């Protein structure tokens, strides 16, 4: 078959052009339903075969089966892969399509495979020809050395291509194994046990919750650890209270929950804030966005997100797949801790615990203790940098997000109450007065502007009620939940 195409060289050239046109046409299509950088077996198969045939016919066209023209092999391979890259660049400018490195790798695999196959074919042909030629030469001139030199060269090329081939196969196979590990080991961990999973669980909660005069408690781990929604339920059974606190959460992160929150029609949102909520130096766990990004429609990403956040939100499936490797270690650690807890009857893993799905009492770090963290005083004494608590005087991305959320909730008749979460007085002493003034001043301004209540619990409880700097212990949580519950129902 290949020899026929070599004979009818122009047909091979025409096929190359035809395949190139088809690839270009398919890349021009703007599939709205196709998510950017879509990753699936169909895509892999399409890219692999398209570029395999493109480069095979290009090889046939350029090399024409002649070993003397072997340099054209590289030219054909370079041309094919350049076309693959240009095809991805082309897709970059097509709406709903994107530039995907992975596709280029698949193209490359197809091109290299074609190159390898073709080289084997012409090498076989060449060895056969030279063998016949060599015989006659040696008969005529007795040049045996030349024959062995040619043979050596052919063997060398065979070895070289064997190495390239093995490298490509190893890459493809390793990726396949990696894919299986992520799918079968990491994904179940992320879905069932990880702390990072809480973001998506909260989003799911909004969709599934039933209308029962819900009150949502938003905030970071301060809220998550400090509020027992079951206790508040007892104070006024007419409302369903849900603790939706999420570790390290800030107003910016809550933006993602705005739309589903409004759709679930709660009676009120109690927005817990602390100094870190408005700081520029608070560590932002980007992962949560990346992991729940598939639930977000990109068009609805609020304007407040900067490029980094947007990038994480729009991470395609392949990037997300590669990104998830960072959870292999936590998943393994979690698994080991589970095994340990089973065999030695120890406590379940403390940091990676399956959540209660009821969003009531959600403490996972501290809920069982009435003590203070023995390390806290020491850590506080040695801590020199308190920049994560520094609230800037100017507007920042967190403040803009906060105000936007309040406006949107109020517009939809959802009552908003701001709660300044309790802080350990020992930690509070370390925060500079400028930050305190900026924090209080900003909240006061928002409260007046949007006519919403503020409940200030920042310095209400003494340090015996705290586990550490801004998490209450069991005793503290009980008292705070009751105090807050009573105050909220007085306002509502």
């Amino acid at each position, binding site marked *: 078959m290949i020899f026929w195409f070599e004979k009818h060289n122009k047909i091979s050239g025409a096929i190359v052009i035809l395949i190139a046109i088809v690839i270009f046409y398919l890349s021009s299509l703007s599939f709205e339903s196709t998510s950017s950088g879509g990753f699936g077996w169909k895509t892999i198969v399409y890219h692999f075969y398209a570029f395999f045939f493109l480069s095979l016919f290009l090889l046939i066209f350029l090399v024409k089966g002649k070993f003397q023209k072997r*340099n054209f092999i*590289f*030219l054909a*391979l*370079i041309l094919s892969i350049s076309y693959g890259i240009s095809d991805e660049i082309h897709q970059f400018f097509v709406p709903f399509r994107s530039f995907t490195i992975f596709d280029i790798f698949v193209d490359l695999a197809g091109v290299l495979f074609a190159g390898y196959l073709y080289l084997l074919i012409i090498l076989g042909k060449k060895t056969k020809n030279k063998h016949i030629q060599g015989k006659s030469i040696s008969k005529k001139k007795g040049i045996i050395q030349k024959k062995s030199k040619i043979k050596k060269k052919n063997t*060398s090329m065979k*070895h*070289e291509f*064997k*190495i390239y081939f*093995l*490298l490509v*196969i*190893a*890459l493809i*196979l*390793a*990726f396949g*194994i*990696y894919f299986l*590990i992520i799918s079968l080991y990491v994904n179940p961990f992320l879905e069932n046990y990880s702390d990072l999973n809480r973001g998506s669980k909260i989003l799911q909660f909004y969709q599934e919750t039933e209308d029962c005069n819900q009150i949502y408690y938003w905030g970071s781990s301060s809220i998550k650890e400090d509020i027992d929604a079951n206790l508040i339920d007892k104070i006024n059974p007419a409302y369903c209270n849900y603790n939706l606190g999420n570790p390290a959460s800030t107003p910016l992160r809550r933006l993602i929950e705005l739309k589903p929150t409004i759709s679930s029609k709660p009676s009120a949102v109690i927005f817990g804030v602390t100094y870190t909520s408005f700081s520029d130096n608070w560590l932002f766990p980007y992962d949560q966005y990346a992991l729940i990004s598939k639930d977000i429609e990109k068009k609805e990403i609020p304007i407040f997100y900067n490029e980094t956040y947007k990038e994480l939100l729009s991470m395609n499936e392949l990037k997300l797949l*590669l*990104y998830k*490797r*960072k959870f*292999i*270690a936590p998943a*393994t*650690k979690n698994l*080991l*801790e589970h095994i340990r807890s089973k065999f030695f009857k120890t406590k379940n893993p403390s940091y990676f615990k399956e959540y209660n799905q009821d969003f009531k009492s959600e403490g996972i770090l501290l809920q069982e203790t009435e003590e203070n963290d023995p*390390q806290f005083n*020491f850590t506080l*004494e*040695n*801590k*020199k940098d308190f920049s994560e608590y520094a609230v800037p005087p100017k507007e920042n991305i967190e403040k803009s997000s906060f105000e936007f959320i309040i406006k949107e909730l109020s517009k939809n008749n959802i009552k908003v109450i701001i709660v300044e979460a309790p802080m350990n007085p020992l930690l509070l002493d370390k925060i500079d007065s400028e930050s305190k003034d900026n924090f209080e001043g900003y909240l006061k301004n928002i409260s007046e502007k949007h006519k919403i209540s503020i409940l200030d619990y920042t310095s209400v409880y003494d340090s015996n009620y705290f586990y550490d700097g801004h998490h209450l212990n069991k005793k503290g949580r009980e008292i705070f939940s009751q105090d807050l519950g009573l105050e909220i129902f007085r306002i509502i």
Partner: protein
Amino acid sequence: MICVVLAIKLFKNKKLQLSILVLSSYLFYYFSSGFLFVLLLFSSLLDFYVGKKIFESKNSAKRKFFLILSLIGNLGILAFFKYADFAIQIANYFGDSLGFSTLPLFNIVLPIGISFFTFQTMSYTIDIYRRKMSPTNSFLKFMLFVSFFPQLVAGPIIRASTFLPQLNKKRLKILPSNLKLGLTYISWGLVKKIVFADNIGPFVDSIFTNPLGLNSLPIMLATIAFGIQIYCDFSAYSDIAIGTARILGFKFPKNFNKPYFACNPSNFWNRWHISLSSWVRDYLYIPLGGNRKGKIRTYLNLLVTMVLMGLWHGASWNFVLWGFYHGAILVSYRFISKYDFKINKILSIIITQYLVFLGWLIFRLRNFEYLGYCVKKFIFFDFNLDLTETIGFFMTNIWVFFLIVLFCYIHFFSYRAKDIIEKINSRKYLSWFLYLLFVILLLFLFSPSLNTAFIYFQF
């Protein structure tokens, strides 16, 4: 790299091949340091010209003049870009006490790999001056020697006498044996950098960001971790450079030889960053008089050489101190070794490595308050341990400790196996394929999410 290999395969003309390599090396440097690639050109022009002049001159004063010209040129670039701000800081420190006004800093961006290529070019002129080699007639070859991209940014420091003769072959060839060995080197280097160094790094940073208040256990573990991190990081780059060069047909000597099995300080420097330590030995220690001018002078030469080598690593007092420390332990070792007492090999390795790792503390910590505290905890053991806390510490960092143990195992295995890369390379295709598959899988699985630059890029 793929493009370079394809181009070398495609074109058979040697001049064209060398031009492609020079061009790609300059492009490589341009992408990392922008227009500072002119420094490469300057260094190449200067030493090519000076090398010729030294060789042609019969007059020894003239020869010396040209040598000094080359040294001023190379060391001048290095001094300006690397040490100018450091010198101004020192001048300001003393100036303040004398009432002089403060000099402004230049805030110079350090060109990547400057310490490596300036040392390479200096070795060329010095060797010609010493009549150990004759200059090359081809500027193209010399440009390639100065800028050759695999080792341009982080070494190893290749001498002209090693590199230039390799350009005398008819043309460059990509041989399957070189390709296989090169890929083995590169893949092994990537594992060391990505799987080991980059995963251990965050643990080291977390401890040394503020070590005050910690007991000896975390400090010692972080020091060991840093020793492994810097070895894996730096030797990885050397492996990648050696492997890349090998694919293109160049043979570079080893830069590391199981340094953590060194049984005395002198032996350590024969195993660690061999290209630099042999450079300072041949071009600094020996010209200073080496061990030929009496005991006191030998000790002094050792100290001066090591302090300057410390300073080569960076314009900071901790590097000076690190160099001095190594100088001091080399002097002490020399002093003790004359008594000729026998010591068990394992014990001698443990003692040497304890001293080497203590040195890593000086290397890592620029804050002298932290350094003092950590050194104290490293020397005077304070294992005031709370069992729950210690278990918590190990559990939190279990992944790092696993890597440390794995590294120790591999390091020991490679010590026993002599040359692990050669061993892997000598396997048949199926075993080599399985190795490759395993390595790529490791890279997929364990590369940290954020990119981490090679530590030695900064030197």
